[in-house]
């Protein structure tokens, strides 16, 4: 059975006709060509397929698009603005927080949600927030460093913006 659904992804509206059992991960990758969202386990354990729904991290391999009409979905492709890397992406690149890069989209989006809720989270808070995103390359050290750096830059930027 197929359903007609309207999805907002990275602020773009999409009208789709998809089988009702198709996961958000599959629709993003196969129907919308947004292959930046990766699959790692199909069971909601590894965090690789994380996207944001209304700003909250959601495992797209466990989410059904039919239930997400009218919600705002953000994928890694929606992080950079106008060709400029998001401060998290910039910090990840500078500090070597991505190696093979496969888990990185999910990590970035989880971190983005954390920083939106908490401007300068302590390291243990970052650890806790990212506990659902497995990375097999980095040993996490540089990921934690990069989130801290991005948080610092974002909050400085926000302060500077407020002062203007």
């Amino acid at each position: 059975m197929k359903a007609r659904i309207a999805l907002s992804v990275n602020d773009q509206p999409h009208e789709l006709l998809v089988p009702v059992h198709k996961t958000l991960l599959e629709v993003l990758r196969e129907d919308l060509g947004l292959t930046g969202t990766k699959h790692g386990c199909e069971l909601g354990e590894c965090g690789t397929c994380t996207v944001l729904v209304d700003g909250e991290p959601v495992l797209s391999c466990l989410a059904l698009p039919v239930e997400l009409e009218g919600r705002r979905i953000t994928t890694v492709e929606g992080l950079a603005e106008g060709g400029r890397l998001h401060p998290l992406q910039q910090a990840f690149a500078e500090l070597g927080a991505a190696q093979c890069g496969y888990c990185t989209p999910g990590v970035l989006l989880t971190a983005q949600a954390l920083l939106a809720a908490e401007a300068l989270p302590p390291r243990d808070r970052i650890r806790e927030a990212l506990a659902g995103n497995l990375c097999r390359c980095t040993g996490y050290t540089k990921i934690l460093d990069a989130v801290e750096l991005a948080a610092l830059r974002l909050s400085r930027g926000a302060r500077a913006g407020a002062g203007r």
Partner: protein
Amino acid sequence: MTGETRYADDLVLPRMAHAKLLRSSHAHARIRGIDTTRARALPGVLAVITGADLPRVRFGILPVSQDEEALCTEKVRMVGDAVAAVAAVDEETAEQACRLIDVAWEPLPALMSIEESLAHPEVRIHEYGDGPNVHKSVALQFGDVEAAFARADLVREDTFYYEGSTHLPLEQHAAVAHWGPDGKLTLWSSTQTPHYVHRLLAKILDVPAAHVRVVAAPVGGGFGGKLDPFAHEIAACHLSRLTGRPVKIALTREEVFYVHRGRHPVLMWLKTGFTRQGDITGCHIKTWLDGGAYGSYGVASTFYTGVINPVSYKMPVYKFEGARIFTNKPPCGPKRGHGTPQPRFALEVQLDRAAEQLGLDPAAMRRRIVTEPFTKTANHLTVTTTGLAECIDRVVEASGWRTKWRGWRAGEAPSEKKRGVGLACSAYMTGAGTAIYWNAMPHSGVVLRADRSGAVALLCGATDIGQGSDSILASFAAEVLGIALKDVHVHPADTTLTPVDLGSYSSRVTLMCGMATIQAAERLRGAIFEAVAKKLEVAPGALVARGGRVGVPEDWDTAVPFAQAVELGEAMHGVLAFPGSYAPPRRAGKYKGGGVGPSPCYSYTASVVDLSVDEETGEIELHDVWIAHDVGRALNPLLVEGQVEGSVYMGIGEALMEEQVFRKGLHKTPSMLDYKSPTTLETPDIHTILVETDDPEGPFGAKEAGQGPLLPIMPAIANAVYHAVGVRIDEVPITPDKILRALEARRRGKPARVGPEKLPLFAFKEPVVVESAFGQPADAVVVRPFQAERLA
């Protein structure tokens, strides 16, 4: 980072079909028949194949172990063996069709452990090998070990077990095959070894190698798990040949647990003699590897459980006996550290025990016995530079070892949970000295082509698996040519375009591809200098290339921009394209088996782990890991640290939780829900110290960093657990239940230990007896093929 990297499963081609494999649910069974009628009738199915449709060729990554079939024809040897494949219009249809294939099975007894396989010679998993269910048996002896033990003040015999684990890259294997109407095949795959896949596809599919192109897509984590040619790649190619469409196949996570080729479970017995001062008089190790159902890299793995230990410490006399046993489990192969973490665990835990018995500080004891630079080991391996002593000093200093080790031992641990520190060291190869198939050609090749724009194209067969090889190689070319990194364009791992690089394994790419890159860049620079020298009317030797210009330092105003220098060069020489080649120095020991172990140079590592053990629950909490790694020279410290930290992480997983275990023929944990691996919460802060020794064999002095730092982690943790609670866990993973069992044993007055109690009854073959080369100076003259200019 931006989602733009296109991994194999991100590729989409017009008219692309999707494939699935039907895999065995039996651990050992004869195939009586396969009926694909119902599957073929399903709408949307484009082709169904079984092994009967493929050329009857057996293959394997090593020439000595040609024992695999892409789709099994006679019998299956493990749960997960593929027997049929389907191509369909979409993945769901292909999967549905697989369920409609009827296979008549005749189950055979499944042998699920080393002991079972040796106890049942009447059940044969394979018909070849060094005995019933024995894939390979090796025995090497360098000097008289019995005499060495007789000289010793202390002789220790210990047994250890190292459980198998899997690589668990986050990207599952995937491939897209396209057999074009011109009869040429292209395969894009998540592979670490496009060259070997190229060679083997030609053989397996019975097609000229000249018409096969293998492109390694960016790999989403490898760690050794993407080094073999796999059934899914072969099936996708053949299905594309049949359907005339591109065919994609992407493995599920469960399939990756079967495809695997991860860490071998190894049972070990280690006997070492020590003097009162802590010197080693001689060492004898026996290893039994649970190889699983096929050969894979197993012969090499077997040797690696014996040959590398003597590189770190002075062992004047050495004996090694090893055997790899077939079982009905997914085959094991190379995982980060390939065959060496297991014997390293045994050695480093035994050293800790010996130090205690001798009343020595385990750090000081190791410091005393490190190998001398530019000498040979008992088994004829050449140590070039070694920074192991400095590595030990640096972690001892940084971790506060002396205070913690002595203070906490006296019961002054600062928390209620018992706190402990443990130390261990290791050594690892920077690239294997011999290729998988014997040949006299380069191990790495590079072509550099300068463009009139001033850009330089770097064509090399190396595969970036996340270790950053593309950027390292680009930086070498940029350094030699004095141009910006951004002006170098790397085109990796495409067998029709790039010279052969053997693959991203055994920590070889930075050194071997790096040396080839430097050679190509120097040749290109030489040609450019010749042309610029003519224009400026100076000697070529007076020129330098830097900051994007070529000129004489004293007269820099006349320096020529690099793009113009290329034009001058092209006007003089024609197209500017230069090759670089590298093969390791020929230093293999002159005895049978001497080809495994030699490497241009070895990296060294020392680590201290600080942890707590809860005596109520048996839980271990890691606080800090200090790790010092001799990387020769840290050319890109950020990348090196990343490799070290990633290795530590993977070591922590193996030490504390990761295990590939089976029950009644079935994998117990073939999913990420059940197979436990460390998250941010179990991974402590890692303090990395880089030690530099500037090795003459490495590019700009560099050695490997991607594997060696994993090795000391498991024994350092085991030693710290003993330091904390006084129990010896002589096997990994060190889980809470084992700690509780050991504590309980102690309460009952039994030895406070969990580990293997008995060894298999197994007669190793007569050893190859060779004189020990221990302490001999490194050869004065070294043959480095293709690098004659470097010697001049």
